[in-house]
């Protein structure tokens, strides 16, 4: 057929099209994952700051040392490998909310975020908080479960049992567990 050579040309063009891409060997890792949650706990009386670093998949959880009756200022920092994710959380502050659950520990929490981490709905994200410790060890294994909630329908700073802050909907972006002791 005289059309045959056109068909073969067409086929050759098709077959040589996109048989590989230049960056097909490159690795891709998730850019928004959080690998470390760090709490900088400053004793209001002495001004001394202790750092507690929670890493996913570490064997033991860091243990926060608190003294009954004292108050502390706490800053939360988020890392992804070596990169600081805290800024990206602040940039998307309306999508984020931290929930502090002091399990087996009597501590009162207030959020003291400034405008950079206060949401448009008036709730504060919780990157900066004040902890008033009543009784650090109130059970056999006291711990803090810190949850980062993303894109909730609505949030509230209200206390709910042992939890400070509630979120309606959204998904958990990160969850860290810190032990508490004296």
């Amino acid at each position, binding site marked *: 057929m005289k059309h045959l050579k056109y068909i073969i040309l067409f086929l050759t063009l098709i077959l040589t099209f996109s048989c590989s891409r230049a960056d097909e060997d490159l690795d*891709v890792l998730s850019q928004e994952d*959080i690998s470390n949650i760090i709490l900088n706990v400053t004793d209001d009386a002495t001004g001394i700051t202790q750092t507690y670093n929670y890493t996913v998949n570490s064997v033991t959880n860091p243990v926060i040392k608190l003294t009954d009756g004292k108050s502390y200022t706490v800053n939360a920092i988020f890392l992804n490998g070596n990169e600081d994710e805290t800024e990206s959380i602040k940039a998307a502050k309306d999508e984020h909310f931290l929930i502090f659950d002091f399990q087996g520990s009597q501590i009162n929490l207030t959020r003291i975020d400034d405008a950079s981490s206060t949401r448009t709905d008036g709730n504060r994200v919780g990157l900066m908080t004040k902890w008033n410790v009543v009784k650090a060890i109130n059970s056999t294994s006291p711990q803090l479960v810190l949850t980062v909630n993303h894109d909730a329908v609505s949030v509230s700073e209200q206390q709910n049992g042992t939890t400070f802050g509630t979120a309606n*909907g959204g998904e958990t972006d990160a969850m860290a567990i810190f032990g508490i002791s004296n």
Partner: protein
Amino acid sequence: MKFIIHICLVFCGLTFFNAQNTFNIQGKVIDFHDKVPLSNTSIKIGNYSTTSDENGNFTFNNVNKGTYTLTANHPNCDTFTEKIEVNKDLEITLNLEHHIADIETVTIHGTHKNNASMIVKTLDKEAIARNSTENLGNILSNISGVGALKTGNNIAKPIIHGLYGSRVPIINNGVKMAEQEWGVEHAPNVDINNFEHIDVIKGASSLKYGSDAIGGVVVMEPEVFPKKDTLKGSANLSGISNGRGVGFHLHLLKTWENGWAVKTNGGFKKLGDLKTPHYNLMNTGLEATSFNITVQKNSFLRGISFDYSVTNQQIGIYRGSDMGNLEDFYKALTTDVPIYQRDFSYSIDNPKQAVQHHIAKISAFKRFENLGKISMDYSFQYNHRKEFDVRRGELSQFPSLDLELFTNQFNINDLIERQYWSLETGIDLMYQYNYSTPETQARRLVPNYNKYSGGIYSIFKYKMTPRLNAEAGLRFDVTKYEVKKWYDLSTWENLYAENFPQFYVNTEGNRVFTNPILNYKNLSFNAGLEFKPSNNFDIKFNYAKVGRTPNIAELFADGLHHSAAVIEVGNMGMKNEDGHQFTLNIDSKLNVLQGLQISVNPYLFLTKNFITEVPTGIQNTIRGVFPVWSYEQIDAKMYGLDFDANLKINENFNYKGRFSYVYGQDLTNNQPLILMLPPNFSNSLEFAKAEWKNFYFKVENQTFLHQNRFPMYNPTINIFENGVEVEKTLDLSTPPPTYLLWGIQTGIDFSKHFSAGLNVTNLFSKNYKDYLNRMRFFSYEMGRNFILNIKYNF
């Protein structure tokens, strides 16, 4: 002297006659493609005429020497004309092109005339027209034994006898669709309005479509074009109440008597948020467009066809299904009223899927006198799938999954048909390239790869006696994967470093780059018998030995599945699945009322190395602890029964019933298989009166029983309740309870050109959950839906 003159005259007379002015012509008329003798053919040579006998033989005696036009006429055949020179006795054979009033389309498919031992159920043109706004998965669930595996109502995959995905290929106008079909929430990219009928071949009897067609095959066929000068088409407009949607479809066909034809279709569908009986499902809208064009020139002897089609879908995924971790899942399970609500909207936000699929095809065929019908197909498919999750800040505009799949397929097929047997042989070649762009800034779920495969098959059918047909088929496939895969260092060292050191390339930090090259070989065969003891009875039996090569997800899946809150892991060491299928089908026509047709189809399927996902552990991530589901190979046993009944009660009333039961067991772990279709049955009664402008009214009831055979895979979490740590179990395994659904269909032809139809589903707005809908954890199914459509035919 007088005597000598008389002798001379006699001699002269004899020589005169012996100069032969008339001749005899003997001949036979046979069918061109299967060589069957054609009786009752009227043959004319000039003014002489005769008719062929029951053996196709004919004779012309004493035909005068000369040149004539010979014509042969047989009902259902084109007139055969040929110039013939009569100057000696002749013996001729006439090959007539039989039974072609229409032109066959240039596709490879098991023709309806010759299904032999395959179990084929068809959704005809009328069924498609009555449900024109439906997607493929949902419309096929009207066939016994076929269900829809859903992720919300807009994503539905056909599941035949408990098998889906790679095990149920979809053939779109002769092209086997390559669209990341391994994914549970990857819907087929088709617009059903482009097809004249859809065949579902149940079971593994059809080796022509590949050795992975273990569950069956869905074959979608466009119409057959008439060989005359016409322009026809239709326009179809639908309104959909649930989702406040609209659907539109335009079909145009221009054919010419010389065999040229141009066909084009265009479709559009838009839906907003769907509604359960009590609330709106936030972000469940859909926008879909489709277009195709075919240009072909066909005759009985040869044909060539160019086809192009494209579909584009944007599908919203219910907002409440995007889970962060198991605690989030627990909260979703324990609230009956959804957390996510919004006023009705057409807006499709994250999470959503955006999929584009293109198919371009060239096919040609030629019939040869002795070699049969040889067809060749080349097709190119491009599938671009993007899945968007709820992501932080600016990243939400980038998809978390972005896959481009390029597939080239070439097939050459030879079909030789004779009176008592047929032999179909062919070769399939495929080259596929998958690219997952790093621009997603999210971990690849499946890696970049090249896949090469080739298969050769041969199917022989034999009419042993007028009542007994036999069939045997054989197929051999080879497949090669060439993959570029990054593993976590710990995963590589724990699972693969020892067995596959040859694939290691290099290490970067705690990531390992590998280049696996996997080869698979597969031999499948089938044997079947069809016995027709009388015109009212038909028994088919088929045995198939099947093998399936693992797909890319089963080998290399690696990532968090958000809507399932599960981490999925593939296994590079997978082997071919290896199984045996037995199918029996009994069709009978009984003299009850005005005719009762019954079809009973039991089947049994035993597989070694059946690939399935099971929970194998947990993984601690920054979001919390997740169950890990790994692909594993087990021994499986599946069996079941499909039953169909069709009773013509009288002139106007028709009853249809169907029932199906599927049993699946994981023999290795001694527990039921997951996601087996629950036993279900349907009854419908239709009133139709052709005299009332083809008015019809149908009521249907569908009942789905609670599936009480399921594996228990319930994860546990620890939460604090009243200051005490308690363990909670998430029941993700128990299927929902039994439910009944009612529906109505009615329609009328206003005039020769206009027809209208109304379809009401879930008539009583029943609040129910479907076991095969993966969204059942987060919401109920759709409530009542009114679909009105108006069609204009010209």
